[in-house]
């Protein structure tokens, strides 16, 4: 891994991320409001159909808050998967004409999602206050938890963007993958439905630790997510390292086959 080279191109990373932010909601009527609207609408759907009609438990928390806390990191993750999988193919004009570390492209795409994440997070804090929940010092845990989301999102982004160069099938697999992943993550339901022993296996999905971590750090949920976060961190790291290795192995051929 040539980290020095990436460091030398850090300004390029910022420029590319800035470009992605600038053009993301261009020519949309609602603009940046979409960043808040997407998780909010999903929350509404979940609350009505799953919380109310389905009667799914929410660890004693108000169901809308319970699901929205999970949807904030999830929306960022799902969005990153979507955008980064197409990032190399979408920038083929650059790839075939200029050299720069190719890692900058999916990385910038994931970074560009941080703005949306921040907006959704502020809405979440507002919602908590509305429900009368005041954040404690545990909120500090959001920082490492966010790092885990970024790590997993980037890891997946590297895998998918590199795979997509050779196999455009990625485009068709992705919606199914995202749906499956959503269901395999305790967003609409609590992980307390599982036995404690199984929760650590469950947390191989890095989003499990993140989501339960968010609930614990912000809402003071009853689950003690320590082991899950530990397993998820390792899984996220594994995802990033394997993604980076695959990406590095494939990048020499990008310009030829993209």
């Amino acid at each position, binding site marked *: 891994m040539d980290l020095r080279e990436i460091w030398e*191109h850090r*300004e*390029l990373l910022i*420029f*590319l991320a800035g*470009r992605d932010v*600038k*053009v993301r909601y*261009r020519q949309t009527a609602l603009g940046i409001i979409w960043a808040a609207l997407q998780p909010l609408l999903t929350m509404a759907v979940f609350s009505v159909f799953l919380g109310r009609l389905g009667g799914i438990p929410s660890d004693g928390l108000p169901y809308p808050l319970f699901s929205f806390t999970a949807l904030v990191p999830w929306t960022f993750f799902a969005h990153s998967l979507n955008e980064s999988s197409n990032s190399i193919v979408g920038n083929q*004009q*650059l*790839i*075939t*004409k*200029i*050299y*720069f570390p190719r890692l900058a492209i999916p990385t910038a795409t994931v970074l560009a999602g941080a703005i949306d994440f921040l907006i959704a997070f502020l809405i979440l804090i507002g919602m908590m206050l509305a429900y009368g929940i005041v954040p404690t010092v545990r909120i500090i845990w959001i920082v490492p938890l966010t790092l885990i989301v970024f790590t997993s999102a980037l890891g997946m982004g590297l895998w998918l963007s590199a795979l997509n160069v050779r196999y455009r099938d990625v485009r068709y697999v992705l919606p199914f993958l995202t749906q499956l992943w959503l269901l395999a993550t305790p967003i609409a339901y609590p992980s307390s439905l599982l036995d404690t022993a199984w929760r650590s296996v469950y947390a191989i999905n890095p989003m499990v630790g993140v989501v339960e971590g968010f609930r614990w750090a912000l809402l003071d949920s009853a689950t003690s997510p320590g082991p899950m976060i530990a397993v998820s961190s390792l899984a996220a790291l594994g995802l990033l390292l394997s993604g980076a290795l695959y990406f590095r192995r494939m990048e*020499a*051929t990008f*310009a*030829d*086959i993209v």
Partner: protein
Amino acid sequence: MGDFALEVRGLGKQYRLGAQRELRVTLREALTQAAGRVVRTPASLLRPGAKDRPDQGLFWALHDVSFTAPAGDVVGIIGNNGAGKSTLLKILSRITSPTTGRAVVHGRVGSLLEVGTGFHSELTGRENIALNGAILGMRRAEIARNFDAIVTFAEIEDFIDTPVKHYSTGMYLRLAFAVAAHLQPDILLVDEVLAVGDAAFQKKCLGRMEDASRAGRTVLFVSHNMTAVQSLCSRVLWLKDGRLLDDGPAKHVVSSYLQSITDNVTDQQWPDAATAPGNEKVRLRRVAVRPERTDSHVITTHTPLQLEFEYFNLQPDAYLNLSLHVFNEHGVMAFNALPMTEHQWQGRPFPVGRFRDVCHIPGDLLNDGVYSIELLIVQDDAKVIFRKRDVLVFAVHDAAEQRGAWFGDWEGAVRPILPWTTEFLGATDSMNND
């Protein structure tokens, strides 16, 4: 590592055909060339190079290319389309990796492979300078330092805060080149920039390249403009079908390249009078064109030429004269030449037998381009008894000297160098006194 800025050893790049749009273009060209070769000289297919041609869907865009370039060298790269020039630059700029061999580059590489890549049409000129600069590898401070120079160079001061989608093509290209030109790499790779812009802008671009080499930077320059290559480059690499065919002083390599790409008809002979062109009155025996001085085989605009025509007169006591129609490649007749200064035979009856006419075309008369000669044989000053088009076809190459800084086309059917004077007639206040 030595003192080389660039070391290329056994470089090869293999492509699978049909893998990419761009490659199909190359394939098409390769096939056209191969077809052309079959028509002209079937034997050339038997040459060793031929067996590497489209074979099982793989082909070598570049094959076993080696060279070194010391710092400060300006190296031209020439060759037909599909010869591997762009592939070479892509490997050197690390856009793609070689299949075999390696390229060692000492220092920062700046490439101008296609100006304007990385521009975003929704962003303004100012934003694009920042973005493009970053993509090309410039630091924020470097961009800020050069910002004014870039804007001035591109001549877009008034439009700097307008989205580039509203720019004219010329403005867009000028801005793109300006950003790239202010990059200060150790090695500058340039692919055919002369295709864009007007004469004044061309001059600026070439000026930047000269500055770069004077500052000790190595420049690799791909171009189809042989005049520019000859005047800018001390050394030239000639690529053909992915191989390095020649590597040497610019003048030498460029002239052998030019020699190879023209289908000249410079010498035709018909030893058998029965099948020779002609009729019952006259028959051709031989036509030829050659430089008057035999030490050079390349015809430039400066070269005095000699056209020779041998023919049989089959009628007793015929009053004959030749007439030459000289056409340029646009089909324009540049001039008509007649034996007006010939006094030995003109106005006298020709006996039956073999004659030879020689016409001298001085240097600095023909322009560069391909000329073809139509030969007419006239009887009694008025009656055309024989005419034949394209008896001779030859290319006149551009002479790099005496052009000043202009590298574009030199217009006109002829290109004489004329006596010229300029006089100073006094200061402006004398205008009224006249």
